[in-house]
């Protein structure tokens, strides 16, 4: 189905505004159709939230943008995903390179069982960067961006596993920032965290959008309302409604959206 998006989301005169674009995207897991044809455009330097009940395909859809579904058994896709106008599912695309441009933060904090320093430096090291001074600066810089530096600057060689859940998640964000992506995908990044850590991450997301395009999947509608500029509501593999968050949460066009955000199902 084609989603007609109103006012300034579709703005064909300025091409760069659309960082990400999905064209007629369908996803199958073996015979199961998880995404049933979605067209969507996502703006640069904005926070776009995906909401919807479990199993609606929002996570699957998110993971298309860095090709994380490629490893899932039986995964098959139709249509195109464009980043800056380039189809990332073309044969020639270097997937590793793509993922350096499109960072990802996961539901459960998943630091490597290495030191804090090694975690943040990992992405740079696998690119073959060995310059110690540069790595150090980059690690410090990334940790400062997520406001974790002051908490860990004396313990950089300690295991990341010893940090609290909220710290681990901020470390994972720092790890992603270190490789300087332009897009950050977040798959329910606060669902495993306490309210205080959640608040910190939300604050962080708000700051990060100056430099990055952020797409976030969340189960928490208050969160979507608080942090996102745009919100997309998914249901049963379809994009039901996509609008400015303010509009979608106060005055949704579709009955299904209203039912969901008012808590009548999901």
């Amino acid at each position, binding site marked *: 189905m084609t989603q007609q998006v109103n006012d300034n989301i579709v703005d064909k005169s300025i091409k760069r505004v659309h960082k990400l674009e999905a064209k007629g995207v369908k996803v199958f897991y073996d015979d199961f159709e998880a995404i049933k044809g979605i067209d969507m455009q996502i703006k640069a330097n904005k926070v776009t939230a995906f909401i919807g009940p479990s199993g609606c395909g929002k996570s699957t859809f998110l993971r298309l943008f860095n090709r994380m579904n490629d490893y899932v058994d039986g995964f098959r896709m139709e249509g195109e995903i464009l980043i800056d106008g380039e189809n990332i599912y073309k044969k020639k695309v270097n997937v*590793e*390179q793509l993922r350096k441009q499109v960072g990802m933060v996961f539901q459960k904090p998943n630091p*490597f*069982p290495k030191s804090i320093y090694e975690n943040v430096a*990992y992405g740079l090291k696998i690119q073959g960067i060995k310059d110690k001074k540069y790595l150090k600066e980059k690690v410090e810089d990334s940790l400062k961006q997520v406001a974790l530096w002051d908490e860990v600057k004396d313990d950089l060689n300690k295991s990341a596993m010893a940090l609290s859940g909220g710290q681990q998640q901020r470390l994972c964000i720092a790890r992603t920032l270190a490789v300087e992506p332009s897009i950050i995908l977040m798959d329910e990044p606060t669902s495993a965290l306490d309210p205080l850590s959640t608040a910190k991450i939300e604050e962080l997301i708000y700051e990060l959008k100056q430099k990055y395009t952020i797409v976030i999947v969340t189960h928490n509608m208050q969160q979507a309302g608080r942090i996102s500029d745009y919100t997309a509501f998914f249901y049963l593999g379809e994009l039901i409604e996509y609008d400015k968050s303010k509009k979608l949460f106060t005055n949704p066009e579709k009955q299904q959206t209203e039912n969901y955000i008012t808590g009548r199902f999901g």
Partner: protein
Amino acid sequence: MRKFKEVFIEKSLLTSALITILITLGIILVLSLEAVNFFREVPIIDFLTDTQWTPLFTDKHFGIMPLLSGTLLTSFIAIAFAVPVGLSISIYISEYAPRSFRKSIKPALELLAAVPTVVYGFFALTVVTPFLQSFIPGLSGFNSLSAGLVMGIMIIPFVSSLSEDALHAVPNSLREAAYGMGSTKLQNSFRVLVPAASSGIIVSIILAISRAIGETMIVAIAAGQQPRLTMDPTVPVETITAYIVQVSLGDVEHGSLEYRTIFAAGITLFIFTFLLNTFSYKIRKKFREKYE
């Protein structure tokens, strides 16, 4: 009636558990008693420092070192072969192989451990040694190289299967993290998964070493029976296990000093495998704590 049945079952289970422990203790006791008798006649310092082991000759020497060197040499060759191969196999199965292939290859590999070791022994003696002789001139008919290599083949599944389990047990979230950062499969395997699974991998290697040190038939058949203090893999050697077989099957009088040598050799072997097993148990315990 029902309660009686419960009690009966409980007690019989307890008895089976106790029997196993008692048998182990019994073995240790017999080994120790006979070894103590042996050390009454042979000073322990000679046993540890003498460089010759000739208990069956008229000029008797009781130095364990030649047997120990034979054991360590063959085990070292086996491990040096089995660890790289086994680890590569485990990484391939866990990270690269399609799931359907993984299901069939694992039991197939474990079959390697099910081949009777006497078959391996003859394989080493009649196939591997002649093959190696074709490009290593001067390789003797019995040698530690071919015995060690074949023993290595036998213990591959110990390394590959347990390492694969350890790699497979690494939470998927770490794989996703590594791929999400732009790692290639190779970088993911070696920089993230192998370090994350390192304790399990180390345990698999220790168990493989322990198995290699205790292995008997292959070395008895293919490595020769000449106790010799050497690190040269091309000449015949004798391992502790092979010596025990030799004496047990020979016509040495029971209760004699020569007879008791096998207990002294046996307890040396036991100490080695016991230490290795304890070590691996400790690592495994630490490993469990880490992921809970």
